């Protein structure tokens, strides 16, 4: 049970990563590798601030802002200097690796003796409600994620959110409707990486340390979350899509926890994650190929 509560909490924290990846991958149809860097930078910034005694809430917000700035940089590299989003993201996240090291001072920074949002939540839960520490964390994470999902879904239906989605869906149309497509891309990537930075900051506080390896495969993990979510919840409306990103993250973490419990070597985790994403991308093609009638030299007609 403890195992599942822990896994669900981590899943909720990583759901924010999933939401961030949703914004770049589904709204802008772009693989934003900044994710790896902004997840790390969120963790590094929050750890560096917490050990210096900065109030946890402020430290966490600043960590999210650091992620958003990273997204801005990638967005500006892409829109102002016409560098592909893939390369721009790689450049930013490579640079952020050093930023992470500078912020932490070393490859690993323990939060054992620092007050963090996690210790605060555990305290308050125990004193006011008499909750188990792991339970208060789960409830708080659930409330936070619910609030963000609601906020993001609402936002996507405002004028600004619609403009953002149109800019991602059809740039020529967006321009013809007086939408600043470049500005929307920068804004969208900032929002996306802000969420990812927040996810990194919460994750570091949950596990009690920040580590320079933390950002590795953040993007792929986020993609895996999305795909599990899309398979379970569907993608019929923007609200479903967003909820799917969260459900996917939690289910994915639970599956991982159970698999490890059943004897999966944790070292194989990234391999399994990559295989999952690959499988989701490739399977439909394989199925389509298998189902196609062998053609007698005649191309299928697309009317």
């Amino acid at each position, binding site marked *: 049970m403890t195992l599942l509560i822990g896994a669900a909490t981590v899943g909720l924290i990583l759901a924010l990563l999933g939401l961030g990846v949703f914004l770049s991958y589904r709204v802008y149809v772009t693989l934003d590798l900044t994710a790896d860097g902004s997840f790390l930078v969120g963790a590094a910034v929050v750890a560096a601030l917490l050990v210096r005694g900065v109030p946890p809430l402020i430290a966490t917000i600043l960590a999210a802002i650091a992620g958003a700035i990273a997204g801005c940089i990638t967005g500006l590299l892409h829109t102002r200097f016409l560098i592909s989003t893939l390369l721009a993201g790689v450049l930013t996240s490579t640079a952020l690796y050093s930023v992470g090291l500078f912020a932490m001072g070393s490859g690993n920074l323990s939060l054992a003796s620092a007050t963090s949002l996690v210790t605060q939540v555990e305290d308050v839960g125990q004193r006011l409600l008499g909750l188990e520490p792991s339970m208060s964390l789960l409830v708080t994470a659930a409330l936070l994620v619910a609030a963000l999902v609601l906020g993001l879904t609402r936002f996507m239906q405002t004028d600004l959110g619609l403009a953002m989605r149109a800019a991602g869906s059809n740039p020529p*149309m*967006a*321009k*013809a409707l007086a939408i600043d497509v470049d500005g929307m891309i920068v804004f969208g990537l900032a929002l996306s990486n802000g969420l990812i930075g927040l996810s990194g900051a919460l994750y570091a506080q949950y596990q009690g340390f920040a580590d320079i390896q933390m950002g590795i495969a953040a993007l792929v993990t986020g993609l895996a979350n999305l795909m599990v979510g899309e398979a379970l919840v569907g993608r019929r409306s923007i609200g479903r899509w967003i909820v799917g990103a969260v459900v996917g993250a939690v289910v994915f973490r639970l599956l991982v926890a159970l698999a490890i419990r059943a004897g999966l070597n944790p070292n194989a985790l990234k391999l399994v994650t990559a295989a999952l994403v690959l499988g989701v991308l490739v399977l439909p093609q394989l199925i389509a190929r298998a189902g196609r009638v062998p053609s007698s030299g005649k191309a299928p007609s697309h009317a």
Partner: protein
Amino acid sequence: MPEVVLRLEAASHVFHLGSPSETRALDGVDLELEQGSFTVVLGTNGSGKSSLLNAIAGSLPLVQGRVYLEGRDVTGWPEQRRARFIGRVFQNPFTGTASDLSVAENLVLAGSRDSRRWLRRGLARDRRAAVEERVTRLGLGLERRLDTPMGQLSGGQRQALTVLMATMVPPTLLLLDEHTAALDPRSAEQVIRLTQEAIVEGRLTTLMVTHSMAQAVQLADRILIMHRGRLAYDLSDARRRRLTEDDLLQLFDQLRWADRLDESAAAMLQRAYV
């Protein structure tokens, strides 16, 4: 004297500048469009029709010359800034609408073309009702599909909605880029009817590129024929009245003969002197 909505001064654009395949898409075009006029641009492929439209919309930067909208110099304005005053319908029916947004969401976005987009709810009840009313007036039954993703509609339906979207906020200038060329005859007729209704209702100034001589003689107050990046003929009101499709075809033939004459003259000079 009617107000001039659009003025082009010596507008020029060159593709592949400095390379052997250098082409003058626009070669010093001067043009004024009067408020409420319907101008049709004809021309062969590569004559510069689309470049003219793109230069006005701002998606094609000029290498020389200036663009004025209602007297304002907009030469340096990016496309999205000019779009506050310009409505646009493209040749490809899928270019004018966003497939991933619902029909209603597309229309609401079009309804805020001239205003700042902030955190107002897109489909607030009053806005949805307004959109529904406009779609009902199209008479295509699309009011029942307001929440359908735009991607599920046919090309003809999407182009009809694009016309509505381009004119939802009455634009200072409406640009139509062969906007019925990719449609089947029935949809094309429907879209032309809706376009005409919107233009009459909003007293819009319109610039339309087309290949159809029939559309030209039927709709235009003024016909421009482009050739090699220049306005070869400018047939304004008085002359247009008695124009037929045959007259237009004859003008095209003249252009072609002139071209051949140029070529044979060049060949003759070459024989004589090289």
